[in-house]
């Protein structure tokens, strides 16, 4: 019986102009987005390989080891293949980071140099599902019950010996299949075209993440489909349910997530990064100003100890300053996330960006990775320096000493800058609240439609 009803619902959807238009729209948007962003990924990948080659050559041509330590070197992470479908914070994460011995790491210019990238959001799968997909879900469901009630067909169906819960379940399943199948077909075609025409390839863990993104997208679309179904059950005219569904969609998709981060910035203020960087510099200057006179008066043999003491103090106090500051930043981020989660759209964006490796946790993770990498990098440089000092023992000719001291650096002696992709279990743990919220909202909306439909007055 249920399958019969689902089949009927499915056929009634598939034969409509709405289904045709929804299919065409999703297909064109998802496929064109995958190809365009795939080509963009291609050029970023080329640029990355070129920069790696150039970095190797730069190291080989380095003629002043001390200056190399002081000036530092530029590093960048390889482009994220999943950014073809979910850009997230990739624009920020892909910036060059300069790491040097004596100054804090700095971000380079954005790879997305065109300022129009700031003005308009990326047209990726995340954006398409978040806005267009949810709107289509609303359009597919808004007249599921109220439309049939208006036409009088609902009364006709219910005149047969069909349990109401089966009718509702069939309506949900039939409409949802009609929505999700075009979506999946479009994603598969987009994936295939991006793989054929660009360098886009997914590794094992990325495949899992990609499938999880599809799963979360399906859950999110179901959330809006079920919400519109609940509204349709609560009304007796399709025009009313359309207007109310549209109102809910605007508030949940366009208003709440877009306002929340700005509200959080006002609710939980933090000092500007410029002020903190300034405080950091003042701290360094203050410590050196204190130590420097001592160094001038100290014996030559004690100067090294004083220098190390100053560096340790700088490291400790900078760490304390940054810890306090980052705690405040995290509180601000948490407040924004908590506010935005009033909308399933925000939960979807947070969960999907996390799965793609370009979410909030990945931005914070890059900071941690850079700190860790800097320690390893400096250690590697110290090891190289010590090795050269050992080679210098017994060499008296100054030209020869210079040659040894400033010999080219073997790139293999330095650690590779590749921020790790977080394990899937860790991603799922960090996204558990969003996944739970989406699931709970699905259940609540479905229960609301179920109860509403059981009590639905067919005679009105």
């Amino acid at each position: 019986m249920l399958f019969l009803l689902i089949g009927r619902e499915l056929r009634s959807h598939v034969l409509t102009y709405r289904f045709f238009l929804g299919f065409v729209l999703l297909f064109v948007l998802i496929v064109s987005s995958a190809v365009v962003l795939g080509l963009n990924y291609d050029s970023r990948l080329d640029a990355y390989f070129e920069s790696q080659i150039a970095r190797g050559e730069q190291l080989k041509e380095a003629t002043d080891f001390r200056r190399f330590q002081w000036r530092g070197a530029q590093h960048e992470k390889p482009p994220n293949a999943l950014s073809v479908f979910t850009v997230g914070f990739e624009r920020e994460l892909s910036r060059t980071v300069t790491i040097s011995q004596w100054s804090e790491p700095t971000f380079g210019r954005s790879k997305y140099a065109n300022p129009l990238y700031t003005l308009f959001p990326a047209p990726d799968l995340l954006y398409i599902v978040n806005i267009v997909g949810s709107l289509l879900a609303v359009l597919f469901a808004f007249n599921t019950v109220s439309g049939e009630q208006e036409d009088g067909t609902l009364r006709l169906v219910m005149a047969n010996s069909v349990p109401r819960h089966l009718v509702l379940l069939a309506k949900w399943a039939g409409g949802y299949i009609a929505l999700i199948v075009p979506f999946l077909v479009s994603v598969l075609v987009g994936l295939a075209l991006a793989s054929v025409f660009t360098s886009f390839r997914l590794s094992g863990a990325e495949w899992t993440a990609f499938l999880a993104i599809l799963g979360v997208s399906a859950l999110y679309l179901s959330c809006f489909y079920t919400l519109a179904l609940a509204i349709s059950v609560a009304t007796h005219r399709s025009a009313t349910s359309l207007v109310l569904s549209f109102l809910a969609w605007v508030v949940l998709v366009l208003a709440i997530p877009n306002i929340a981060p700005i509200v959080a910035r006002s609710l939980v203020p933090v000092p500007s990064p410029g002020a903190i960087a300034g405080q950091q510099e003042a701290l360094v200057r203050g410590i050196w100003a204190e130590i420097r006179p001592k160094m001038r008066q100290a014996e030559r043999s004690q100067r090294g100890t004083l220098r190390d003491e100053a560096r340790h103090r700088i490291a400790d106090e900078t760490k304390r300053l940054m810890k306090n500051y980052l705690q405040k930043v995290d509180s601000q981020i948490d407040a924004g996330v908590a506010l935005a989660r009033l909308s399933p759209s925000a939960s979807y964006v947070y969960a999907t960006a996390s799965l793609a490796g370009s979410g909030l946790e990945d931005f914070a993770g890059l900071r941690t990775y850079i700190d860790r990498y800097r320690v390893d990098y400096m250690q590697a440089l110290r090891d190289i320096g010590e090795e050269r000092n050992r080679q210098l023992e017994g060499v008296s000719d100054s030209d020869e000493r210079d040659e040894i001291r400033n010999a080219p650096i073997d790139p293999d002696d330095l650690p590779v800058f590749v921020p790790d992709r977080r394990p899937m279990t860790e991603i799922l743990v960090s996204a558990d609240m969003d996944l739970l919220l989406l699931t709970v909202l699905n259940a609540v909306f479905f229960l609301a439609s179920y109860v509403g439909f059981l009590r639905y007055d067919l005679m009105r």
Partner: protein
Amino acid sequence: MLRSLILKEWLTSMMELRFLVCSALCVFLGIISVFVLHADLATKRDDFARDQVLYRNQVEEYGNYRDLQNQGIRVDRPPQSFQVLFYGVEKTLDRTAQVSGDFNSGFEADLNTNPSVLLFPVADMLFVVAVVLSLLAFFISYDAVAGERETGTLKLVLSYALPRDQLILAKWIGGYLSLAVPFVVSLLIGALLISTSADIPFMTDDWQAFFIAGAISLLLLAVMFSIGLLVSVRASNSTTAILSLLAIWVLIALIIPNQGPYLAELIAPVPGVSEVERSIALTTKTLSDQYFVEFRNNRRNFRNMSGAERREMRRKFMEARDQLQVEVNTATEKIVRNFESRLTHQIEVSRLLTRISPVASYVYANTDIGETGVRHEERLVAALRTYQREFDTYVEKQLELSGGGGFGHWGGGDDEDYNVDGMPVFEYRKELLGGRVTARSTDVLLMSLFAVLFFMAAFVSFLRSDVT
């Protein structure tokens, strides 16, 4: 007659639930966005004022001009009052620049910041009009003709001695008013909030820009309403009309403007930022290698020199270092300017591609008029570079007056006469309103053209349509 018809259309709209919902959304979102962004601006302005004092104090702590030249002064991106309406490029994380003796390529981002705002579009007035109200325009217009055709009232109305041109004109004016009036109300409430807030320093030209931007917003709504009316005239029923309009909305409000920069990158590629950074690093290295080789060679003889010889050698090195700085700056500027000229071309290509969407034209026009667009970004970086030159000239002059300065803390210690009272201050001067409007006249003209074209198409289609 026309007045009665307009009144009838207007009253019909007002009686509907969707009018209530649209008006509520329009007013609610408009007020909320101004209110929230006003709080954000107040925070930014406080930070900016506090940071200015902090940076100045830090400069005073240097104690010598050589350190001032090397370490420089921080400059924050000045908050733009218009961000309460059009957030635009203010969303960027590139907020602080270190102005020193080095050539400045622009504002830089910080790792230790909250990036959340980049994950979602900001719900400013720009977004409310370009995305929400443009969709509401379709929601109000989709059944203006198709709906009446379905219910049969169109046939009834046309059975009277009513000219069709007046009827379609009345439908346009009546329907448009039901969208424009709530928008104007929300705009006026926004104006009231801005005028009563001490945190939003709106001057006369800002108010002029505000009303011009409001007029451009009304123009966009007119374009969208005309498209809606055209589809409503052409569609066989209101369901087909609304679905077709939603597809059109997705394309012109969400997809075309957003895909523009990506397509422009394929059509007019620019060298990668890494490549530019590498070129700068390589050029700097090549130039400074020459300096350091000479420095190292002479350093070996340092111990055997007399005091006078040492001073002379130090003077020469300082001169050579200053010369190196000039050469590095010139080379860097050449690379950066070459990159930026190609980037400007890419931006133009991007604009050209996306202007087929009136929403893109609207975004370009209003962000530039509100000084939160690409034009503002370019002018801001130009102002920063001008300031860098002023700063450099000032420091050079002070170094000369103080006898050439030392090597900073490591060399000669503090300058006794170190005083930065006369140091130039970074000031960003707004572009005159006339210049901003002229720069975006193409976009305004295009929108006007679209509005007329789509209305004419709806008009002609309605005159030729078969109501039976």
